[in-house]
């Protein structure tokens, strides 16, 4: 029997399942199953490195421990601060660059390519080379800052005041192009006749920006920030390479702490509870955010 004949009798539904089947299977194997397993583990005192020791059910103990631990809240604060500043800066600079590149000028395409380059690099590589840029003795960053304002030698990575800014600067440098590209797509979708009508109505450039450009580009910007927010909540590699979470714990984000608890201390049960809490947090915030975004779109 030919293959053609064999599949001839399949219904549309069956063909549909045939197409999505592999994806669903993969999703179940590498996303859903680990999630369910982690939830199960979060109620036990399991240590993955303690071979032969059977995990025991401990109820909500791990959750209570995570939520009552002062250090965890410190990491969450560090993460929140990192997210706030990176998203704010990326929104402002990204939108600004998009507005700039939306104009037609010589070299526009070359400039766009150059601006987009940082986001094509590996975060770990970015982390490593920024440690050199931040070096107080030979780093370019200190040199540039001192060129404009003589601050003397300062250590961006070694100071607990400056280190959080060090990671914000690098993330902003790397990911602003992403926000810019999404905003640029939004700007290019605004029909020209709206501006022509505004001109006829003698609207100023500022009014055109406030009443036409911003509302049109806002859903795009919010979408970009949603992606960046989720990514930065999970930020790990770049920060580990740059500061290792230090000095002390000044830049130890929740994800870095989670990795240490799970794969260095091997507190599998405890870290599963922490992971579930982080998942619920990001899932909850994400849902609220999407609802707000949809409402803005509907206006």
């Amino acid at each position: 029997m030919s293959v053609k004949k064999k599949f001839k009798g399949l219904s549309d539904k069956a063909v549909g399942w045939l197409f999505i089947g592999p994806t669903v299977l993969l999703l179940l194997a590498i996303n859903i199953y680990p999630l369910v397993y982690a939830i199960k583990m979060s109620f036990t005192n399991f240590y993955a490195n303690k071979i032969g020791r059977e995990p025991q059910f401990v109820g909500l103990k791990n959750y209570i421990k995570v939520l009552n631990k002062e250090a965890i809240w410190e990491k969450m604060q560090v993460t929140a601060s990192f997210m706030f500043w990176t998203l704010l800066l990326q929104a402002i600079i990204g939108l600004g660059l998009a507005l700039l590149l939306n104009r037609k000028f010589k070299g526009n395409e070359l400039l766009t390519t150059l601006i987009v380059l940082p986001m094509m690099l590996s975060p770990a590589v970015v982390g490593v080379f920024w440690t050199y840029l931040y070096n107080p003795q030979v780093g370019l960053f200190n040199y540039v800052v001192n060129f404009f304002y003589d601050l003397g030698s300062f250590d961006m990575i070694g100071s607990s005041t400056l280190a959080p800014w060090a990671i914000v600067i690098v993330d902003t440098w790397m990911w602003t192009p992403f926000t810019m590209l999404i905003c640029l797509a939004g700007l290019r979708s605004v029909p020209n006749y709206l501006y022509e009508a505004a001109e006829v109505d003698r609207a100023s450039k500022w009014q055109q920006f406030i009443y036409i450009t911003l509302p049109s580009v806002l859903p795009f910007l919010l979408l970009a920030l949603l992606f960046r927010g989720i990514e930065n909540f999970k930020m790990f590699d770049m920060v580990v390479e740059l500061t290792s979470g230090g000095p002390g714990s000044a830049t130890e984000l929740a994800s870095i702490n989670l990795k240490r608890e799970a794969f260095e201390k091997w507190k599998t049960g405890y870290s599963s509870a922490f992971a579930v809490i982080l998942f619920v947090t990001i899932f909850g915030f994400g849902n609220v955010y999407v609802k707000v975004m949809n409402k803005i779109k509907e206006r």
Partner: protein
Amino acid sequence: MILLFVSLFSFSVNSNAKSITLGWAAWDPANALQELTKEFTAETGIEVNFEFVPWPNFADRMLNELNNKGKTFDLLIGDSQWIGAGAVYGHYVKLNDFFDKEGISMSDFSPATVYAYSTWPKGSENYYALPAMGDALAWAYRKDWFDRPELKSEFKKKHGYDLGVPANWNQLHDMCSFFQGREIDGQKRYGAAINTERGSEGITMGVTAAMYAWGMEYENPNKPYDMEGYFNSPQAVEAVEFYRKLYEDCAPPGHSDAYMVANLDAYKSGQVAFQMNWYAFWPGVSKEDSGGRVSGFFANPKQNVAAATLGGQGISVVKYSDKQDLALEYIKWFARPDVQQKWWDLGGYSCHNDVLNSPSFPTSTVYAQGFLDSMGIVKDFWQEPTFVELMLPMQEAIHDYVVNGKGTAKGALDKIIEEWVEVFEADGKL
């Protein structure tokens, strides 16, 4: 075609059957071992493949491999602190029967290294490794700068004693701060490159060099795991405060997350007068002295007591290996006194008494006497199976105090004890 395939396949199986894989950290001694091992292959026909992992990832990579019962390695040169986990969780093969059968006696090796690298429980006669690489934290200094008459007289005038190998940590601080910010040969120099690394074990290895010298004990010798008043004793607090002072007054700018390689780089590039590092690096440093640089070496200075932070590793057979017999053959060969002598000659640090007690040993290199001195006074971090859980809180709390300048030394040590109690309780030790 089929015959060709079968013959190729059988060749590959045969060649695999006569090869083993050894895992270690990627550093100078590993290259020396690779060189030495050529003789083993020539003698036995057993190929040895090496997998060297950079230090920052070494513990993660190896411990994950062991926890997952991986078969990548047949032999592992693991850190001294891993011996507890290796024995308790069954990652390492117990070597007592093998040693008895082959006539390998642990009394042929330096007692401090046998205790530190081979035994679990500590002090017992259960051996899970052969001492492979003796090591301790020590210091290198710019002897060429120290010998300059103008610097010598200026230092003596300022401090009332000679510029030279520091007799204690106070003198070390005097000397380091003497060089801090000083211009030598038209370049700005700094005092000392000390361990400040946050991610793995760096700052702990550094600060304990001071804490041991001040007389810190981890626990009550009569009541195991009772740390209150020992680990946070006034002497221990003073040592941690001193380490912070050393960092603030003497470290080069930007030296806030530095360990072995960063210390070496700072020293080799001529930034600093002193570097804290492991003996393992001294052959390289000594060999690479150039451009007028002459290096001197000395053991960790004493303060209240003579003590040094233990480094080094033992070589173990991995329980999950399918080639344990070949791996044991390697250990048998490596334990031979003539091989141990070659190991030292190539830049490895032998722990064999025949090598260490040889009359020519102390003068065989400029750092040999320091090594002998250090190995007699070494102290190690916890070697418990939970050592990583014990290490991480110390890394964080000490880095927070020393580099970040947050809180007090006493507060940092109290916080560490709090975390350690939790770890020992979870492990059923308390």
